[in-house]
């Protein structure tokens, strides 16, 4: 079976390609990238489907290395089917899912369940991230070797960061034994306390307990120091403060094996979005000050930040329709990822090639997967993007089971028009 994508603007940062070219796919793999491939000649003699991509960007399928699919255990929020469906609608073909399911993913059984279900019923590739510690309890290391064999791509205790320094040291060493990264939600929970939004003037005015930036910076500093000491590999999730961006930048100049990601909400919104006690602006790390947002943007611009990731965190309406202090943390992000990232280009923060790189090959490298490129021989995970497509972000039209987004009603520009997974169309936007 052969598919030909014609006349699109191919952007493939891994191969430094930005040109109008055609892509020929056979049996789910890219077999040719060239100008003016003609149907019924040469390799393209038995093409079964031709896709006209005139006026569209043709990019590697996007790679989101930070999602919560809630499956197993919290399928009322999201499951592997709905979550990967939402991913496909956002142009995302590969995603990594965090282990804070119920039960947590600290075993081969859960890892296999996730991978099998995604393969059989999903609309995107799913790469599980397993726990650092058994039961995510911060006491004993999880069986990292076996988890890697099972298909996990990294280790994280995500929202319940390992506080014990000795265990974290050993985690870096042990994970590196298997050439795996430690992925951290770097936060000192004793400094978070019962805080529920960024500490600062807005929290003071609203009478909400604050989470100070030093809770993130202090933990980021420790994690970087441990990575440096052990020569282990660290990926810092969702940097949200000026300090943590600076810490990663400095560490990189020292040669520490560290990478980091930023979320669209942290580079788009400030803690002003909480006003009115908007529980859809409640997440962890919290939305910060304008100064922090500017620092994250600078980190994206100068290459300190390696990836844009969503921290897609679905929660049920009932879990958000409550008093602010008791509302769940997190927002969905898969379907707003692309337009909010394109806004960075529109605003002149980064150029289009850089943006696509932050959403494809760079995150792929962080978790060591062979995706995010349009190289000949690569699996044909491809996004067809209309960067000018204007649409209103309406929760009711989203494919995620949950609708917890602070972007409801936003006028968006840019969307995935069609998403291919191994050459097969898994999403097509009705226009």
């Amino acid at each position, binding site marked *: 079976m052969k598919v030909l994508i014609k006349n699109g603007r191919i952007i493939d940062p891994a191969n430094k390609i930005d040109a109008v070219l055609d892509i020929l796919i056979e049996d789910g793999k890219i077999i040719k990238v060239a100008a003016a491939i003609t149907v019924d000649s040469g390799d393209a003699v038995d093409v079964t489907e031709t896709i006209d991509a005139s006026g569209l960007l043709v990019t590697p399928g996007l790679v989101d290395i930070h999602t919560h699919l809630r499956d197993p255990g919290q399928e009322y929020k999201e499951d592997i089917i709905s979550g990967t469906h939402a991913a496909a609608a956002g142009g995302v073909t590969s995603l990594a899912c965090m282990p804070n399911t119920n039960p947590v993913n600290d075993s081969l059984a859960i890892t296999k369940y996730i991978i099998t279900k995604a393969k059989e019923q999903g609309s995107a590739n799913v790469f599980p991230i397993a726990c650092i510690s058994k039961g995510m309890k911060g006491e004993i290391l999880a069986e990292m070797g076996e988890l890697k064999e099972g298909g996990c791509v990294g280790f994280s205790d995500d929202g319940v960061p390992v506080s014990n320094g000795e265990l974290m040291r050993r985690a870096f060493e042990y994970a590196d034994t298997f050439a795996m990264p430690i992925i951290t939600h770097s936060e000192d929970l004793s400094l978070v306390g019962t805080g529920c939004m960024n*500490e*600062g*003037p*807005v*929290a*003071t*005015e*609203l*009478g*909400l307990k*604050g989470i100070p930036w030093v809770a993130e910076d202090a933990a980021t500093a420790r994690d970087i120091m441990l990575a440096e000491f052990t020569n282990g590999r660290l990926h810092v999730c969702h940097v949200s403060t000026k300090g943590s961006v600076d810490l990663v930048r400095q560490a990189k100049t020292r040669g520490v094996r560290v990478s980091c990601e930023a979320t669209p909400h942290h580079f788009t919104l400030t803690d002003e979005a909480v006003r*009115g*006690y908007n529980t859809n602006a409640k997440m962890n790390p919290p939305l910060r000050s304008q100064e922090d947002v500017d620092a994250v943007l600078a980190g994206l611009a100068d290459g300190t930040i390696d990836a844009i990731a969503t921290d897609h965190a679905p929660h049920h309406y*009932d879990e958000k*329709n*409550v*008093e*602010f*202090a*008791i509302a769940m943390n997190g927002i969905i992000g898969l379907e707003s990822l692309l337009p909010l990232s394109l806004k960075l280009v529109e605003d002149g923060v980064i150029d289009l090639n850089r943006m696509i790189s932050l959403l494809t090959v760079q995150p792929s490298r962080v978790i060591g997967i062979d995706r995010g490129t349009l190289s000949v021989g690569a699996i044909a995970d491809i996004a067809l993007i209309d960067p000018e497509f204007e649409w209103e972000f309406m929760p009711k039209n989203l494919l995620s089971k949950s609708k917890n987004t602070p972007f409801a009603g936003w006028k968006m520009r840019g969307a995935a028009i069609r998403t291919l997974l191994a050459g097969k169309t898994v999403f097509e936007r009705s226009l």
Partner: protein
Amino acid sequence: MFFNPKHILGIKNLTVEEINFILDTAESFKEVNTRQIKKVPTLRGKTIVNLFFEASTRTRTSFEIAGKRLSADMVNISASSSSVVKGETLEDTAHNIEAMHPDIIVMRHSASGACDYLAERLKCSVINAGDGTHEHPSQALLDALTIRQHKGEIKGLTVAIAGDVTHSRVVRSNIYCLNKLGAKVKIAGPRTMLPPGLEKLGCEVHHNLKAAITDADCIMMLRIQRERQGKTLIPSLREYSRFFGLNDSNLQLAKEDAIVMHPGPINRGVEISSSVADGKQNVILEQVENGVAVRMALLYLVSGGEKLQDN
């Protein structure tokens, strides 16, 4: 002027004129409270629910007496006897109460923003009787009324507020109210009890009580919750009292005719010495007395104010 707000959720969004109108209305109700027969028929046939999710003797009783003196039917619901313990959400609890057609719900809740949350979802009026550490408008208004009675005018006064601002439910409302009325507000407390950005609310911030109260016309002491002792904010009540307690000696720094206020309940010997709490400058019980009048005014105005007389 005519002022008939749907809700009273905070001071922040009230105008100077509206605040003064509330205070004037309260002034006119004060007289009812000293009559032989302390009841007027103004709110006859109105149903008012006191929905208190946190213990509060003073505020709840004050609203209850205010409503009863205006002949409204008052119903008290406290969290301990409510369905909250059964896992019902705030929205469901409120809708159940609303289904019985109250005219006003007066709510106290531990979560900042809880009253705004309710007002967005209900058709009846909501009066905020303290939401977390956000606003407590009736307390700020009764404080303003008390100051006005003693000083004539609030404009130009210096008001010092001292204590645990982080955990205070009233201080933000007080800052807004006093600022709007033209007073200068000075806040004092240990840094652990002063949240960042406080000055942006419209006040000077001091870490030294003496600096804040020097030449003040009015001193408001905030309650130190005993359970804070030995946690991370202060080492002991003893030390707090030494540096931030108001006593006969440091009170001398204030103006001679300065008044001493406290939203209650007071901790004698902690934030305020007994001799000051009982001294001639204290107006603490007048605050309580004015509380009833202010709450009568709020219930009256939310219910329709002058429009009520037309019926």
